[in-house]
């Protein structure tokens, strides 16, 4: 464990630690672009300059290992001058288009210029022109002029996705990143290149021009796209959710997440959601308050308690919710007819050896744990038989949030509709539910970003997460639904309609009210 001195402070680090890592450990700030802890060291931006006692030249911190007794400094005038010039070299051909750049507000170049730069530019020559709006593939667009050639994206495709679509082409200040001939950037992790791009060169087709980032709030949660349970950050405002990015977790996802997981915000937004309960009892559909609908449905459920009541669960709810609803069924309705609706059966156990798992549910382990605890071992065949014979009269379904990963949704809905009464707890709209012609209650449910809870991932790791905000104010959690379905009274705190509340806002974030005067939103951009 070598000890070194960084800006006068003694720091002890593990053997093989680079200076830049040691500085992160010590809390000392250091300019850098090309270094990324999840990628190999490129050493090309030349900004992480430090002075090491005994060495006349400044050196890069990313490729220099700490040795015992090393004295490191990055606050001297010599280092500041080197960084200032490093920034100048980066900026001489960089367009000053921050007002229209998607990265504005979270741009490394902006941040570091404000911290280490602030000088009068000396470049009087015309800037080097490069390609604009380069379509790299289905998900990413490149603006070559903004690219500072840190090579993070290239290294990502070489080292992480191992798809090798990207390369550095040409030489000198004509160098540009691009895709190899006939090989678009089209892999299941492509949007990580946008995350790690320190400037606005790589932009997500899905997100670009839709929001200025300073109008977004963010909250950390767990991705519910598959059983890996990547730690993610969701970005939202009163207009809805706009994007998802990974959050580092060494045990789960490292620095990355898959492109599929980026879509999870789409089934959270109001335009695809049930905002009121839909009830069909006398041959026609009527809208009701979700809580009132659940309460009304409880009468039907009580009437068919015991073996004529069944519960179907998808593994997209929290452990706490599973516990509440299964407990209600087993103890209140005296029924152990609880069924696990498994989607994507053929690929359920597959894994791409990076992050993506065939089990497209965040909490299969959590569901199985609860079922096992209650001694439940019913199979789907039992349900089918009960529905066909008419023995099962009432079915409660905790439907999936992410309908895209339930390709058999319509087919299952049709099968379940054989029951006299169906109480379908569901966040997202689906035509198959509107086609039910029995007694039906479709009750809007909260999504994973609207509640606290726990997911247990494929490896058995329990991950707790907190509510980010409320999208559909009337929607219920499965726990609330369980209470109401069992006939209990429940006081639900009303939330104002059409309002996204910042429930776990960071202390340093500006209050929504202070900003909304300038708030605006673009329609989705296109090439």
């Amino acid at each position: 464990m070598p000890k070194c001195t960084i800006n006068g402070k003694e720091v002890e680090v593990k053997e093989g630690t680079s200076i830049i890592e040691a500085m992160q450990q010590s809390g000392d700030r250091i300019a850098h672009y090309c270094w990324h802890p999840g990628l190999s060291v490129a050493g090309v931006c030349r900004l992480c300059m430090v002075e090491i006692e005994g060495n006349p030249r400044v050196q890069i911190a990313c490729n220099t290992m700490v040795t015992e007794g090393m004295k490191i400094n990055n606050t001297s005038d010599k280092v500041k001058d080197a960084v200032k010039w490093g920034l100048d070299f980066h900026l001489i051909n960089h367009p000053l288009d921050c007002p229209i750049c998607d990265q504005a507000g979270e741009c490394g170049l902006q941040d570091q210029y404000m911290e280490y730069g602030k000088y009068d530019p000396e470049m009087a020559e015309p800037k080097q022109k490069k390609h604009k709006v380069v379509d790299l593939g289905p998900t990413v667009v490149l603006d070559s002029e903004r690219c500072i050639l840190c090579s993070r994206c290239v290294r990502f495709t070489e080292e992480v996705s191992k798809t090798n679509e990207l390369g550095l082409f040409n030489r000198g200040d004509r160098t540009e990143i691009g895709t190899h001939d006939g090989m678009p950037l089209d892999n299941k992790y492509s949007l990580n290149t946008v995350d790690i791009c320190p400037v606005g060169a790589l932009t997500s087709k899905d997100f670009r021009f839709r929001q200025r980032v300073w109008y977004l709030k963010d909250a950390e949660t767990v991705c519910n796209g598959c059983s890996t349970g990547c730690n993610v950050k969701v970005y939202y405002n009163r207009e809805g959710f706009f994007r998802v990015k990974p959050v580092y977790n060494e045990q789960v996802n490292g620095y990355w997440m898959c492109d599929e997981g980026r879509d999870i915000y789409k089934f959270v937004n109001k335009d695809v959601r049930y905002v009121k309960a839909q009830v069909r009892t006398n041959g026609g559909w009527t809208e009701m308050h979700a809580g009132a609908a659940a309460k009304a449905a409880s009468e039907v459920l009580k009437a068919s308690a015991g073996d004529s009541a069944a519960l179907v669960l998808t593994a997209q709810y929290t452990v706490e919710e599973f516990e509440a609803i299964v407990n209600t069924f087993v103890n209140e309705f005296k029924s152990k007819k609880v069924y696990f609706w498994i989607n994507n059966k053929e690929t359920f156990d597959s894994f791409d050896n990076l992050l993506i798992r065939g089990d497209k549910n965040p909490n299969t382990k959590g569901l199985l744990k609860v079922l096992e605890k209650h001694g439940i071992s019913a199979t789907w065949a039992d349900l089918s038989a009960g529905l066909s014979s008419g023995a099962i009269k009432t079915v409660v379904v905790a439907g999936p949030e992410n309908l895209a990963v339930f390709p058999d949704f319509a087919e299952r809905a049709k099968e379940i509709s054989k029951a006299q009464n169906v109480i379908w707890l569901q966040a997202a709209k689906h035509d198959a539910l509107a086609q039910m012609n029995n007694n039906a209650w479709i009750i809007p449910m909260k999504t994973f970003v609207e509640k606290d809870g726990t997911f247990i991932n494929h490896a058995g790791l329990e991950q707790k997460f907190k509510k980010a905000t409320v999208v559909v104010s009337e929607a219920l959690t499965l726990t609330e639904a369980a209470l109401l379905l069992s006939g209990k009274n429940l006081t639900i705190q009303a939330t104002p309609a059409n309002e996204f509340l910042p429930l776990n806002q960071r202390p340093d974030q500006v209050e929504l009210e202070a900003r909304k005067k300038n708030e605006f939103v673009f329609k989705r951009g296109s090439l």
Partner: protein
Amino acid sequence: MAEAKILTEFYHLPEYQTLAGYKSKGGYETLPKALKMQPQQIIDEVKASGLRGRGGAGFPTGMKWGFLPKNGEPRYLLCNADEGEPGTFKDRMMMERAPHQLIEGMIISGFAVGSNKGYIYVRGEYVYPIEVLNKAIKEAYAAGLLGKNILGSGFDFDLDVYRGAGAYICGEETGMISSLEGLKGQPKLKPPFPAVQGYLRKPTIVNNVETLAAVTYIVKDGAQAYRKFGTEKSAGTKLFSVSGNVMKPGNYEVPLGYPLIDLINKECGGMKPGRKLKAVIPGGSSAPILTAEEVGKANLDYESLAGLGSMLGSGAVIVMDDSQCMVDMLGVLTHFYAHESCGQCTPCREGTGWLDKILHSILEGRGRLQDIDLLIKVADNMKGKTICALSDAAALPVLSFVNKFRDEFEFYVREGRSKVKGTTYAEMHH
């Protein structure tokens, strides 16, 4: 001049290109001796000879070989024949006139460093030398001098020629390794150094053509014989490729320490009639320029030229007479470096382009007086800030040209034309 024909004694003989011709002059007589020695003995002999790398950096060859790991891991011997530095053409002559001399040197060096595989990385434009080398390698294989169990020694050594695709940076050893690996020719971060992790991440020795060719002589006649030439710190002889305004440009082998002015006046026949010596770049275009006065004090060895703020480099002596415009000359050089920067490290990628643009603003009559200081500031901040030395190679000429011939730059900015030629850039070049 000193008689010092270690490398070039038989270059004038056309048959020296062939195996028979090379053998007739004692070629391949050292190889059996070397193969009977212990590899470490050869390394020690090379160390004792004081041989320094002839590619430009001047790093002690034996010491470089000593950095190889001792674990017997497979390793490679790469001959750097990229020779892309403007003004340098000495290796071309060696490959054309004496290919077997290089091949013998490589077999001996391969044996010394424990390598069974060598590549000669030749710049793509050297079409004829590549043909000659390939022919010579074929002859050597047919004669059992390459391949399995060379001369019954149990030592195997295979050799191939690799034709580069044309990038100056591929002459930098790690850039060359990247290129040989099929990647874009870009230098790699050091550490790890190639001796530890080089070609295909295996221990690799990279030596210049001239360096490897000199090994044969050192093994044949011994380190002390080699040390009879040159100075204490710059032992042996060296090939100098002289270009520019001299009467007889060409390649010359002289002992290190030889006076630069003698090379110009005696070997090269002096300046062209009616012209005076103005300046010399002594070691390839990246070496800082020397004024005529400094040339008079300069000896062709590492320490003398370093003492004058320049360097021996690859031994490419570019001589300029009083008709040369230094602003125009520097414009050519900066354009070359801006074109050849691999684009990897920011100060070099952007800095070389910036220097080029400033220089051409001046040359095209749009220059400002502050641009002269800006050239110095930009060059100063490129120096020593990158993975390889291309950034320094671009910066050093700028610093030396501007510092030593500032009046020409100031005149050009003020008048919009060359002080020496009296013409504008457009008139000079069209």
